[in-house]
Each structure stands twice: as structure tokens, then as C-alpha cells.
């Protein structure tokens, strides 16, 4: 079981999946912190998430030192993420739409990662590629630099339409936690500009895989290769021998970008837990 479901899931509501449990959206989550710890504003800011996402402290230097040091720092960071409950999780479009029905408020904003990595300055609602979520968004006006160009608050229908547009463009949807179950952001990620996806692809931690994996129906697949352009995880390739798409399910993060792009409906998202060898691969 993914550790977030373990801690925040409810079998009665949302079938044990943490982000489908309406209680996680109904509580005053912004105030919930680790017992005895003071809430620091900068800790919750998206730039901290992305800076740390890009370079967990000491990790890059550890590459020069030793394998042991490198492994130790990764373990240390995994533990830190659990303690601060800052894990992120990939969501396929269909689950993302369910989340958008539960969470409020939602505001479109600029992406902190693209701002940092490529100096992209998203100035208005037509350019925003990130969504801030939860009551923390109501304080956006205090930090105009963090929300350059402002925020466009959206309703459920607008949020869904925007997300489908992002999906069409090829962005991976990642639900971002600023101390679970407080959900701070619904990121639209792209390798290599985005902290969360980069940490996962380059170092194998920081972002949990989704509750699904993508499987190809070889009878329907005609080998057009459209899906192969969309995989950000190095999991899907065009298999020359069979002239069909091939997915390594151990590498698959279950983002569903291949599924939503397939013109023949040849890719299906199946539940991770239905495959015994994958049930604990997060």
C-alpha cells in the first residue's frame, strides 16, 4: 500500500485512496502540522519544494564521494519526506478530475519550477501551467513574487477543462503535498524542468507512482507511435520487433499520458494492486 493511503485513506470513503477521501479536503488542513513544530511560511512555499526537488541537500556532492554516502542521503531524504508528509503522487487524468471535484479553492498560477529552471515568466491565465490548491491560496496576494502575474481562481468545470488541456499538451499531473493531507498544488510536470518529476526520474524518490499502470492491448495497437512521444519516465518505447508499443511496468508511473493520447484506445490503465509483483512498487 502507498504510505499516504496507509495514513490518510479511508475504506468507507474513496475506497482507501487518500486523495479520494473527502475528509482530507474538509478538515482545516492548513493548520495541521507535526506536533510541537512551528509552521514556517517558507516551508510551505512552492519554491522550497522545487529547490529541494532539484537538489536535495548534499546529494550532488555525494555523487563525488561514495556510493554509500549517496545511498545514505537518498534514504535520509525519503525519511524526511515521510516525516514532513511532503510526498507527491502522480495522478492519471481520470483521478485528477475526481480530486478537482473535492478540493476548493483552486487557482491557476505560474509554475515555480519552470520559472527557476528555464526563467519562464507566465504572466496571465492563458499561460499558467500550475494550480495552487487549498486555503493557502487565499493568501497569495501577500507574496506577489511567488505568484508573478497573479492568480486566476477557477471553478470545477474550468479546472477540469484546463487539466484536460494540460493533458493534451503532454504534462504529467502530480498532486503536491505541503504536509499531508494538506494539498498545496496540482502540478503539471515535464522532464527536465520540473522538480518533482526530475527527482523521481533521476534519483528514484520524492514522487509516488500512481495507483495504476498502463498496459497495451496488442490486438488494438497498430504501432502508430503517438504514445511513445508522451512518456516522460523512459518506460514506454516503440518495440521494433513487434511494431507495437512496449511498456516496462516497473518503470511506469501510471500518469496515463499514453492512454489519453492513443487514437485506438489500445492502452488501458489497470490497478497497480491487481498485479502482485507491482503492488508494493511505488
Amino acid at each position, binding site marked *: 500500500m502507498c504510505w499516504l493511503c496507509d495514513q490518510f485513506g479511508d475504506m468507507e470513503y474513496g475506497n482507501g485512496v487518500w486523495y479520494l477521501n473527502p475528509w482530507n479536503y474538509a478538515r482545516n488542513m492548513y493548520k495541521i502540522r507535526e506536533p510541537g513544530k512551528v509552521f514556517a511560511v517558507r516551508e510551505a512555499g512552492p519554491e522550497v519544494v522545487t529547490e529541494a526537488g532539484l537538489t536535495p541537500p548534499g546529494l550532488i556532492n555525494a*555523487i563525488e564521494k561514495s556510493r554509500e554516502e549517496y545511498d545514505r542521503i537518498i534514504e535520509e531524504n525519503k525519511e524526511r519526506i515521510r516525516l514532513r508528509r511532503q510526498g507527491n503522487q502522480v495522478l492519471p487524468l481520470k483521478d485528477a478530475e475526481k480530486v478537482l471535484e473535492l478540493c476548493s479553492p483552486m487557482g491557476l498560477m505560474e509554475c515555480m519550477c519552470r520559472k527557476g529552471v528555464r526563467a519562464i515568466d507566465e504572466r496571465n491565465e492563458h499561460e499558467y501551467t500550475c494550480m495552487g490548491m487549498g486555503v493557502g491560496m487565499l493568501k497569495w496576494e501577500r507574496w506577489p513574487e511567488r505568484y*508573478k502575474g497573479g492568480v486566476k481562481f477557477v471553478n470545477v468545470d474550468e479546472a477540469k477543462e484546463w487539466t484536460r488541456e494540460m493533458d493534451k499538451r503532454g504534462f504529467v499531473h502530480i498532486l503536491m503535498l505541503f504536509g499531508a493531507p494538506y494539498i498545496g498544488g496540482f502540478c503539471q510536470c515535464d522532464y527536465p524542468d520540473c522538480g518533482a518529476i526530475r527527482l523521481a526520474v533521476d534519483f528514484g524518490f520524492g514522487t509516488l507512482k500512481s495507483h495504476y499502470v498502463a498496459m497495451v492491448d496488442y490486438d488494438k495497437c497498430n504501432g502508430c507511435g503517438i504514445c511513445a512521444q508522451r512518456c516522460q519516465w523512459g518506460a514506454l518505447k516503440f518495440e521494433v520487433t513487434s511494431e507495437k508499443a512496449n511498456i516496462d511496468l516497473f518503470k511506469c508511473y501510471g500518469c496515463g499520458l499514453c492512454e489519453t493520447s492513443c487514437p485506438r484506445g489500445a492502452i488501458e490503465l489497470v490497478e497497480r494492486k491487481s498485479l502482485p509483483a507491482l503492488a508494493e512498487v511505488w
Partner: protein
Amino acid sequence: MDIPRKLPKITIDHEKCMVPFLCKKCLEICPQAVFWVVCIKEERLKEMDPRVPGLYKLSAPRRDKCTVCNKCIEVCPVDAIKIEAP
């Protein structure tokens, strides 16, 4: 990739690189997305102006991905980037 391995050392002269968020040439050209730019003097209720020298700072946090292709050095208008090959 092998660990441990030597990594390139990237030095940025912040006396020369004063408006990285405005210039952004290295950030855009790097094939490996090694660089990161951030506002170092964020103020409450104020949006910072990228034209003001020194408000934004360029760094190279992902030097592990650097291939020393030197494209950033070629494109830098103020000659602020130095890379030491591993």
C-alpha cells in the same frame, strides 16, 4: 551511472551576472537544464523587478547532468560562467 564519479565544477561570477532572470540565455540553451534562477530578496506584498541588478541569482545545482558542452559559456553576454571539466 557510476558512483562515485567526478563532476564538472561550474562557477558563476555574480559580479558579472546581475540580471539572470532578464537575460536567461544560459537557462534557455542548456540541453541538460543544469541551471536555476531564483529571487534572493523576496519581499512581502511586492513583486520584484527582474531588471534591477542583483535581485535574482543564477546557480548551477544540477552540475551532475553537465556534459561540459560549453554552450552556456558561448551564449553568456557578460562572460560570467566558468566550467572546470572533471
